């Protein structure tokens, strides 16, 4: 009996060590591209292209992180990304909250059709529709403008917005809003004063998610924006990624500026987001 339990304990300890070993390796592997970006961003150009490069820079060239702001309109790119992401988030929420509210709290003809339409709209990535999008943008004179990108991002994020928010609203009991209506609130007031404060965590998750999606968007911006001063970071940093020569050190220094804010934001919502995505899916 003693021997048996000791054997089980030893097996458990071994499994534990194995678990640590595997998870640690996966983390190393996941971080490797970021490690490469950081070390490369700190190397000088000749060192990067030398045949006997070392893993770490011989001497860290911190000035790369300063130079990019002069070599390219980085501040402008960053501002553009900020404007696009913020604008898209605001429009997506302004349109999405009322729609999600109607889907969660009202019954109307065509409800199932609307839900089905939302799900189908998800299968269209903007890239497949680029030619059509380009024509629509020409019609509104919105090619090469931030406003155009804002509308596109907001529209293509509608499905997720409504999906996530509807799930949040459904998880909250309607009793409080009903009580508020009895006290003389109308629906809009009940939504703004009663439901939204309770739904705040779900709303924050949703808006950060849209913000990140819009910040990371590349394909539509690549196609629609031609002026250098209107490019967001994802497109703009390719100024260092030329056909004839690639300035890797600058490209990666700029990339780190582009990814750090969203990675940090993402970590803050990851848990709520995943449960919201699957819950919304299971509920239809």
């Amino acid at each position, binding site marked *: 009996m003693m021997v048996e339990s000791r054997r089980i304990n030893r097996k458990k300890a071994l499994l534990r060590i194995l678990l640590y070993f595997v998870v640690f390796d996966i*983390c190393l592997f996941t971080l490797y591209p970021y490690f490469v970006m950081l070390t490369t961003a700190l190397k000088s150009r000749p060192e990067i292209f030398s045949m006997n490069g070392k893993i770490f820079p011989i001497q860290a060239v911190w000035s790369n992180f300063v130079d990019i702001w002069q070599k390219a309109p980085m501040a402008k790119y960053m501002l553009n990304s900020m404007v696009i992401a913020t604008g898209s988030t605001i429009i997506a929420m*302004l349109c999405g909250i009322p729609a999600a509210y109607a889907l969660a709290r009202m019954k109307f003809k065509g409800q199932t059709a609307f839900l089905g339409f939302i799900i189908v709209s998800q299968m*269209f990535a903007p890239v497949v529709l680029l030619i059509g999008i380009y*024509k629509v943008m020409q019609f509104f004179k919105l090619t090469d403008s931030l406003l155009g990108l804002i509308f596109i991002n907001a*529209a293509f994020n509608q499905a997720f917005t409504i999906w996530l928010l509807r799930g949040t609203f459904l998880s909250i009991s309607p009793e409080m809003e009903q009580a508020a209506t009895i006290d003389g609130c109308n629906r809009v007031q009940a939504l703004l004063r009663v439901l939204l404060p309770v739904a705040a965590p779900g709303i924050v998750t949703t808006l950060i998610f849209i913000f990140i999606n819009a910040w990371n968007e590349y394909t539509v911006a690549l196609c629609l924006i031609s002026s250098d001063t209107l490019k967001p970071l994802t497109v703009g940093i390719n100024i260092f990624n030329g056909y004839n020569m690639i300035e890797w050190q600058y490209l990666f220094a700029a990339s780190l500026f582009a990814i750090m804010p969203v990675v940090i934001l993402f970590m803050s919502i990851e848990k709520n987001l995943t449960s919201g995505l699957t819950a919304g899916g299971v509920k239809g």
Partner: protein
Amino acid sequence: MKPKKHSPLLNRTEPYLWILPSVLLMSIFIIVPIGCVFYMAFSKISKAGIVKGFNGIENFSKVLGSKAFSVVLSNTLVWTVVVVGLSTVLGFILALLLNNKFKGRKIARAIIVFPWATTLVIQACAWKFIIDTDYGALNTLLKSLGIISSNVNWTPTPGAYFAWEIACGIFVTIPFVCFTALSGLQSIDNSFYEAATVDGGNYWQQLFHITLPLVKPSLTVATVLNIIYVFNSFPIVWTITKGDPANRTDTLVTYLYKLAFYNGKQGEAAAVSVIGFLILLVCASLYMVSALKKGDE
């Protein structure tokens, strides 16, 4: 005790007013472009992008008749099936690992989120640098560790390039699968496992009879969404090879981008869009039927 009396007409139209902004937004920027693409797919279009009248199925027959298209189509299928398949399996295994309680789990979760939050174009740039033959980071790393003595050419053929693109695709897709599966795993009531242990069920029996059936809904959602994303994914292939050489690494979306914006063949590009749309429609309708059915239960 009704608080306010609306007219019956307002009551009936009210829900539609609530969904109106969203419907307008999606109609103008998604539905109208869809209409445009279909219209253009059946039109003769000049190089300058001006529609010159109805063209029947000529765009389609041109696309389907070209040698490049069959390569592109099979690339797209390989790309979608391999990336979605492998990232689903690996992501699920990773979720099982992370579902154990251990020290540093929070840090591990935070690290594994990285590729999900990083914009694909930057991730792809990093991979392009890593696999470079002359000065790539992978060769540098392996030489420093003494595993190789001279530079290895990691991309001798177009197929090798495509394999690296697939690897990059899997790398960035795993976190999404992992975290959706993990949220499914964590919602499983522990009492199921306790009961199974009392009945003498071993780990593998528990995995196949309790865990898998209960995470299935989460995994299904993740898989369907992934099929759509991966099928439509543009930045990885575009950044690493631009579909070259000679369409050998093109997928449907990079191919249509080149047709439309490099070669001035907008009609054919629209036809490719429609074909891609029809392929996805089959997947999405299957998904919609199952999702709506669940909603009714």
